[in-house]
């Protein structure tokens, strides 16, 4: 009897102790905004793309921490001799979250709905249609083999297939849901969609049948918190496990807080001073080299990027394959810069000031453009180059650059697909100096560079391309169309007991491996 009472009492005591909150199987990510649309064909903001990244699989995906394609739903691929036919072998036995098998028809459907305007599932508000303009045809050869015909040999095509809009969607779900698919996405990614409370949160759950290792934590929740201070407080109190877009002024607090940890990675992003190579005096590479030598890049990056950037030595961020680290960097040396100018026959006192165009508002690649401009102006003035700063709002700034009104201009580029071509061709090839919106705002034109880049585009052999891009970067280092400034970091903060978060150069998190330390 007495024993029974004791046992009863123990049971009560054990039950009475409040159970630990079941937070162990849930990771909450606080971000600055709510998604706009979860349909990969419509999503263009980072918040939407990041959710879509978790829900959908693609033929290839970027490997952890690097912008390099690796097998996802396709296990292998090959390119025809002439480089225009890409054949992908699909992974066997993979199913979408609704049970529909992932087969060649689903791949064809996912692309055709975006690129064929007559397709029954095509919608007018699809934003990525142009991104796939080079696809002539997609067809299912066998249930597990799909073929793309593209208009010309184009090696970066593979990297394009790792990007958000190349997500493979469940045709069954799209047909059933129509426009509502954007609010109930169904893919074959590591997480399946559970619910979206607009303005508040998106909840995803582990896909136990994911072809790769299923996520370690069951639920992944994205909550929207516009204020960076609010996000930080949520992280401090433990109501969020991961926060994105940590404000630079909050970095010391995170560093000094024992329960918090910074997770950073270089973004696939570059900021630079473009020099208008079509106009005197910047058409002279000797002057351009002198200017590069007169900019104190290290100090600039450390002071203005406040520890969330690294000095750039070329267009390619270090986590993009093919990036060279061994090229001439024109280290800051005002004396040498002065000498270089004398050799180039520069007579500063007789020259009109160079117009340095800068945007008046910060952007992801440049936190304080006005200060950067001022520092560059002072640095150049010191070696005898007068500079006049022209500050415009971002839209006007962009227009002026397209029109080529500048001598010098602050600009930056957020990479799309992690392929070197996306930087080198887009920003520096002579093809892109013309038209109403030239992306090469240095108006740099070098036939040799153009040849190298064109050959690289047509070559699918990775080693050969790497060799060609190495050559291209060497050409740039000699010609100096830019003063490369910085590659910014993507900065996430997490609770210190969280493990396995990988920040991708795309500024998205890779959450599959996230788990709490015991």
């Amino acid at each position: 009897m007495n024993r029974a009472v004791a046992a009863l009492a123990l049971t009560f005591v054990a039950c009475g102790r409040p159970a630990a909150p079941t937070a162990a199987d849930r990771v909450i990510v606080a971000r600055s905004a709510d998604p706009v649309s979860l349909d990969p064909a419509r999503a263009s903001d980072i918040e939407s793309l990041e959710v879509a990244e978790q829900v959908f699989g693609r033929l290839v995906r970027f490997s952890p921490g690097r912008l390099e394609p690796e097998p996802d739903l396709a296990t292998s691929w090959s390119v025809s001799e002439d480089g225009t036919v890409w054949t992908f072998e699909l992974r066997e036995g993979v199913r979408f979250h609704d049970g529909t098998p992932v087969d060649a028809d689903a791949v064809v459907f996912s692309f055709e709905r975006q690129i064929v305007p007559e397709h029954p599932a095509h919608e007018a508000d699809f934003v990525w249609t142009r991104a796939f303009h080079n696809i002539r045809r997609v067809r299912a050869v066998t249930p597990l083999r799909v073929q793309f015909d593209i208009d010309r040999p184009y090696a970066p095509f593979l990297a394009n297939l790792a990007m958000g809009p190349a997500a493979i969607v469940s045709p069954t779900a799209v047909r059933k849901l129509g426009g509502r698919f954007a609010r109930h996405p169904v893919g074959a990614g590591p997480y399946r969609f559970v619910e979206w409370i607009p303005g508040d949160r998106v909840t995803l759950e582990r896909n136990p049948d994911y072809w790769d290792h299923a996520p370690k934590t069951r639920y992944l929740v994205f909550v929207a918190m516009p204020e960076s201070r609010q996000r930080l407080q949520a992280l401090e109190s433990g109501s969020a496990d991961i926060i994105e877009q940590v404000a630079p002024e909050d970095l010391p607090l995170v560093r000094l807080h024992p329960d918090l940890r910074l997770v950073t990675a270089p973004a696939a992003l570059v900021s630079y001073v473009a020099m208008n190579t079509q106009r005197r005096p910047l058409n002279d590479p000797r002057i351009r080299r002198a200017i590069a030598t007169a900019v104190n890049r290290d100090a600039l990056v450390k002071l203005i990027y406040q520890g969330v950037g690294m000095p750039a030595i070329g267009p390619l961020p270090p986590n993009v394959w093919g990036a060279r680290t061994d090229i001439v960097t024109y280290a800051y040396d005002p004396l040498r810069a002065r000498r270089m100018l004398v050799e180039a026959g520069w007579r500063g006192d007789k020259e009109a000031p160079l117009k340095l165009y800068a945007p008046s508002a910060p952007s992801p690649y440049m936190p304080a453009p006005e200060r950067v401009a001022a520092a560059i102006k002072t640095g150049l003035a010191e070696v005898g180059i007068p500079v006049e700063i022209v500050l415009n709002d971002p839209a006007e700034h962009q227009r002026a650059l397209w029109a080529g009104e500048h001598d010098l201009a602050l600009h930056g580029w957020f990479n799309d697909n992690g392929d070197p071509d996306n930087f080198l061709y887009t920003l520096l090839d002579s093809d892109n100096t013309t038209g109403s919106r030239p992306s090469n705002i240095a108006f740099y034109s070098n036939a040799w560079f153009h040849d190298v880049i064109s050959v690289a585009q047509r070559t699918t052999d990775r080693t050969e391309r790497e060799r060609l891009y190495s050559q291209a970067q060497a050409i740039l280092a000699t010609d100096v169309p830019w003063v490369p400034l910085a590659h910014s970091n993507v900065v996430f903060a997490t609770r210190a007991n969280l493990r396995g978060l990988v920040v991708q150069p795309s500024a998205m998190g890779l959450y599959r491996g996230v788990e709490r330390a015991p």
Partner: protein
Amino acid sequence: MSAADDNKVTPLRIGANDTPNERSGEIRTTTAEVLRRSSGEVRASAMFRVTDILERGKRRSGPGVSSLSLSAPLRRRGLRRRVTVILLVAALAPVIAVSAVALALIFSSVEQGIEFEATRGLQVARGLFLQQVQGIAARAATVSEDPALLRSLIARPGGAPSTNDVRQRLGELSYAQPTALLEVTDASGRIVARCAQGACNELLAQPGHGGLEPSMRSPVVRRALGYERTVSVEGAGTQLVVRAGLPLVDAGLRMLGTFVETVPVDGAVVDRLRAALGAGREVVVYQGDHPTASTFMGATGARLVGPSLPSNVGSAGLGAGEPRVAALVVNGHPYSVAFGALQDVNGDQVGVLGIAVDREPLAAARRGANTTLALGVFAALLLAIGLAGLLARRMTKPLQTLHAGALSVARGDLDTRIAIDTDDEIGDVAEAFRVMTRSLKENQEGLAARVRELVTVHQVGRAVSSVVDLNEVLRSVVAEAVTVLGGKTAAIALTVEQPQRSFVVRAYAGDPVGDRLAPLAGAVAALGRARRTPAVEADPQLLDAAKLAGLTGPVIAAPLTLKERMVGVIVVGRLGEAPFAEADLRLLVTFADQTATAIENARLYTEVRAFSEVLEQRVRERTTELESAKAEIERALRELGTAQGQLINAEKMANLGMLVAGIAHEVNSPAAAVQGLVDALQDTVMRLGHCASDLFVAGLSPASLRRYFELVDGLLPEMTTAALSSTLESRQRQKKLKAMLAGNTDADVAAAMLAELGDLGERVARDLPAVAAGQSLAPLAGYLREIGFLARSSGTIRTAIGSIRRIVGALKRYSRLDEAPLERVDLHAGIEDTLVILSHQLKYREIGINVKRAYGKLPPITAHVGELNQVWTNLIHNAAQAMGNQGELLIETKVNEDQGTVEVAIEDNGPGIPADVIPRIFDPFFTTKPKGEGTGLGLSISARIIENHGGKISVESAPGRTRFTVRLPVDGPAPVASAQASGPIVQRAMGASTPPEGTSS
């Protein structure tokens, strides 16, 4: 009862308490004794022994004093007391348990609440503290951008910056921040000014300000010199400080020096934290293990330095995660204190922040609750005792009555009436007791007879079932029958069917009259059922037979019936004594049944023995036959082995023949190409000589010649790899070149020659006119053409030689087939070698086989490389043949990490293997090829090789897709197999495929 061999029985404890001497131990007694006793008066019931004991007890307690009448009231009181206690416990235990649990819960949740409060306070305080740190950093940033301060640091033309100006400005700035120490260093990190509260110069002479050490050695200065803005928490002397270091730069970002602001974490800071936390909370800060500042006040109102760090917290390794909470007493007052780390910018712990929550309210609540509980329990106890006493009295009253009745029944008075007629469970019990007493009486009478029967039947059954010899069985049955039934004579007569139905006495016991009972048996058999008669001489049906036998007196007889067939009769007589009872007859019938079974058993036993003897004889005969057959088969097997060995050699030779043919062709083609080129080269060299001399007489200036040869040198590497153009291209190019060169001397000839250079021709054509400087282009172009041809030929020859080398190399490696030991090998290399060896077959005709490789990343595996090559050869060769030498061959490799195996799959898109053939393709000598094309051993040998490597080979086939999959363990064959693996696998494989010896026996 295991003593089956004698007729002793082990303890039969009927009436074990009869006499004092029997009570002391086990009684061994014979069956007869038991039966005699049990067949006497009815006295076997244990129930009656109770009466005996009670009566003996009465006798022992002496006359006039009844132990029963004494003990009954005592027991009644005992029962009531127990009921009272049970009721008390039942009523009180839950109350006490629930109260205790509730209190435990309340205390634990209050305790947790306090811990939670402390933890939450720590979280809030740390957040606040870090915000203050951020504020300090922001303030310092403002100072570091102060234009006047920066101006004062900029060196005047031709001199160092003025230290006085710097101090003056820093002094001004320091008024705004009364607790802070401001310092400025120059670009080399040397301190040029230290100010606090407007005072500057005199501080330089002192070692510190307010106990603060100069920050020269602080890492924040070093960082600031590297353009970094840092704010950190540091230990400075005995104090914990917040220190911000910032670079001072001019507009061009040149380093002027650094600015450092140091704010001690002192009483003011902790007071601010406490103010935000609310009443009953205290804050304490530690540097390392030592408290440096706290909000605790002493009795006199003086600030205390704070309690020292409890040993279980420790200064190091608090780290992240749940803060530690400890109970501390400060100033005689209990607190729960949550401790959390304070770390510097590198993440190293430099101090501890503690938030104390007053525990006094908890202690008071605990005292109050204890008192309430104690009073409550006491009151409940009093109430329960009263109620339980009352209830127990009511409940035990009818039980007393029942108890008395039960005692008198126990005493043996089965007619006792129990006068309870209540309408509840106790009334039911009384009624049930009455019924029970009645049936008890009835049962006692039946019981004695039944016990006797059971014992007897058991005895006889045991006697007859253990014996197989029929006569012995019968003898023991009649002996038992005489003993058990108290007869003077007994006999068993068995039926004899031949020549006619009659009875023969087979056993008798007792009086020899039994020997003459055959006629009586006949008479009983005629009756067809058991018979009991008090005097046989008066029985109308039996008297004749009895007379013949000379038997008188009471008789019982029963037929022995087996499966409804009468086999005999048993008769027992008492020769004039008391008549048999009905129970005796029942017993005899049971004897009869058992005897019939025993007769059957004896008969079956005899039959089985006879049969087994015949069987043994037959087995001996068969064994002899089998042994001779076995020798025959062994000889046949040896012959088969020899034949197989010859066939394997044939297969190897066939493979080799096939390979050699292909390789000869492979080597021959490039050799022929080289031969052709070498022939052409002789002519070219000659022409080159002519061209060279043409060139020198062409009248070019030395500068032009130098430029020309530079041009030629520059082109040479590309010429080596340039492709030949088709005739059509060449014609078009010639036209284009002609246009380009138009106006120069000998433009047409030069255009024709340059056209042969392909793409390079156009590049050369651009520069050539300039080089020629008006002279004829022909010698320049001619020389170029010949050089071009030479270069191209050398490239081609290099390629040809290279491919010959490749083939020979592959063949060399491949030919290590038989002698290669077990080694770590790269599977891909082996497969590639095999592909080279088989390349002739794979590019058969124009169309050929397209080999696709989907190679995974494989670790080297332990294997016999030569043997594996043989497998790849077989699989690829088969695939190629299956596809009719055109189609697509996919070779896929991958590693299964979790199983430690690698996988090689060879897939063709040929017509596939018919489903009925698939199960047999790995059988030796099975082939679908026409006779003479294959030995049918290829796949079988491959399978054996893979098995001997500890691997597996499998095939799936459908039209358009046939896939052989080989799985091999990365670590090679299992140890045993690898020990055997020293000999050639083929031999072993064939050995294993012959039937093992002895299967035929």
